[in-house]
């Protein structure tokens, strides 16, 4: 009796589910509140034309299958993947964009710069986001068809936990490199003391903390150390992940911040936002004859200072920049996309999105601790975006 009841209950539930999903119309404009939610896609974003209208009718931002006409009022979903550094900014900016253009959804997966580049090369996404420009190898793998568009700037804090010294520590690039090389072991080393004549430095051992996982923040930081110290450049080099001579690794910026906070004498590097969140003091880095704490304006000034020396393909690391009020440990974050777009409507939508992101979209940066692009770089971005083509025809970005 109970078995039969159970079986009939299961059948009726299945029938009900089937009937309900067939009768409810799949919403073509999903709520603007969740345009960047991964929407039931696990780690690979679904290719939009083959997108899953068969997934749950509930909240999936559905793109009508096969459609690529944004103008006809049907939703188009653009897919991007890459840097986790950009994720907070993109979440906010793309949500705002969808409010303005309700037929464009943007689905961004924060899977890491390397994975984002791979997905752009292999095809599933329309654009990638990366904190380090593509290497020549990666460019070759993508048939040299990739355009780099800087969309934001980040400043990397060097934070410390020194009992007795709550603020005001000054460091030079050379001293920082020696700390991370392991040649300076104690806080009251003469090299540090001479930069801080007014501070009483304890004889605590320096506990060096770095990232255990690959990251764009590491790339910016090691590029800076390489620019400040030839020894660092020769022995260690720079990259998303390096062979650190000393120090312990923390997972993610949160891990590094957590370790620095807990270990007396700790020093570590992470994006500026984490220093504020964890109430950690940042060291003032030497830049020319100034000592600058990390700031949004400092990062923008860094980019502005080197703007006229930028190479045409905009694949350049700006850490180690000099200039008035230019914070030296800064770096771009790029959106990368194909120069030759295959679908003209998608290409148009993408170029419009990026045009907006580099112009009006910059207003959302400061609240999230990103630095807005200086005007010179925005001009270069405009040139880059105007060079995107679809099937041989240039795309005119809509302003």
């Amino acid at each position: 009796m109970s078995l039969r009841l159970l079986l009939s209950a299961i059948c009726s539930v299945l029938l009900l589910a089937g009937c309900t999903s067939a009768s409810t119309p799949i919403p073509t404009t999903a709520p603007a509140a969740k345009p960047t939610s991964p929407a039931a896609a696990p780690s690979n974003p679904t290719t939009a034309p083959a997108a899953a209208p068969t997934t749950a009718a509930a909240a999936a931002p559905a793109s009508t299958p096969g459609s690529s006409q944004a103008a006809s009022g049907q939703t188009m979903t653009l897919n991007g993947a890459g840097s986790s550094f950009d994720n907070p900014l993109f979440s906010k900016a793309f949500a705002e964009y969808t409010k303005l253009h309700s037929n464009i959804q943007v689905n961004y997966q924060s899977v890491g710069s390397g994975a984002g580049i791979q997905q752009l090369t292999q095809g599933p996404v329309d654009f990638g986001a990366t904190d380090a420009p593509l290497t020549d190898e990666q460019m070759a793998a993508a048939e040299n068809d990739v355009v780099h568009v800087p969309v934001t700037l980040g400043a990397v804090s060097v934070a410390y936990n020194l009992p007795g010294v709550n603020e005001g520590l000054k460091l030079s690039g050379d001293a920082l490199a020696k700390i991370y090389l392991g040649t300076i072991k104690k806080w009251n080393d003469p090299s540090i003391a001479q930069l801080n004549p007014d501070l009483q430095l304890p004889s605590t051992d320096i506990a060096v903390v770095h990232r255990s996982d690959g990251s764009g923040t590491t790339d910016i930081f090691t590029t800076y150390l390489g620019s400040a110290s030839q020894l660092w450049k020769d022995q260690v080099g720079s990259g998303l992940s390096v062979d650190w001579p000393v120090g312990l690794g923390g997972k993610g910026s949160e891990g590094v911040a957590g370790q620095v906070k807990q270990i007396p004498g700790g020093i570590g590097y992470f994006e500026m936002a984490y220093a504020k969140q964890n109430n950690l003091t940042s060291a003032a880095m030497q830049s020319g004859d100034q000592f600058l704490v990390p700031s949004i304006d400092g990062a923008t000034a860094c980019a502005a200072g080197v703007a006229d020396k930028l190479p045409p393909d905009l694949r350049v690391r700006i850490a180690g920049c000099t200039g008035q009020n230019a914070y030296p440990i800064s770096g771009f974050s790029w959106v990368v996309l194909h120069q030759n777009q295959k679908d003209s409507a998608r290409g148009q939508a993408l170029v419009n999105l990026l045009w907006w992101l580099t112009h009006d979209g910059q207003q959302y940066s400061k609240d999230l601790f990103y630095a807005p692009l200086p005007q010179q770089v925005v001009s270069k971005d405009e040139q880059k975006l105007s060079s995107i083509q679809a099937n041989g025809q240039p795309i005119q970005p809509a302003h």
Partner: protein
Amino acid sequence: MAVTLWESDRASAARRGHGWLSARAADRVFLGLAGLFAAAIVGLVLLIAFELARSSTLAWDTFGFGFLTSTRLDPVARRFGALPYIYGTIVSSLLALLIGAPLGLGGAIFLSELAPRWMRSPVSFLIEMLASIPSVVYGLWALFVLVPIVRQLIEPALGSTLGQVLPLFQGPPYGVGILSAGLVLAIMILPTIAAISRDVLLAVPREQREGLLALGATRWEVISTVVLPYARAGILGAVILGLGRALGETMAVTMVIGNRGEISASLFALADTMASVIANQFTEASYPLYLSALVELGLVLFGVTIVLNIVARWLVWRVNRGGVRRAA
């Protein structure tokens, strides 16, 4: 009752050879399906090994056996080696076993022999709850609770006493390191060992215990002379399962082990495990050799797990031969 009527109708029809599936055919189908599933599991393991080997050929060709003995993992200079990670994996797992196995076994003995009957279910349930806590949660807890305790209490205490004599306990007290990783892993494998050991101990026949008690043995003598030896094989099996979990554990370990690929004589030192390195670096591996080296690291981890399991199984077999004779 309606259900019984329904079942017996079909059953008797099947026995008579009527209905769409006779009893013999049903048996064959069942055997076939069960065999298929078993083969699928073996096939899956072989497939994993094959796929790992295939994706790591680039690194194999570049480094050869030097991969297993080299100590640097340098993505910038494009040199990769596995030795410090093999060391970190094995040492942290063995430390976890050394701490976790006696604790788990002790808990199992308590639950099966010494605890009042009303306590058995709740405490068993609590121990099994430990097993269901996600690894990341363990890692976070360890990072914020265990590591400060280790840094401020355990490491200074060990360093000032045993550390004067043994190089095993020397070095600056970072908190993170092999010791913390071993402790977290011990807590994680404890429920596995405790739950299985408890079941094995409960399965020891009452006659064995009662016989020895009749001869005038104390509680402890009963446990040590009869119960433990009889259950030896099962307990070793539980320990092997715990070891397997410790070897593969990633998230909790990577948060507290210090992520520094070094080999050092001290338990206070920073280290890294193969699983931790792969988890940390896989998403940002930006060129094919890097990826291939990480996959090869995965293959080495696979190999180390298999080797350790073989050694453990051999140990069980050795013990089992002696054990049965003693218990009889």
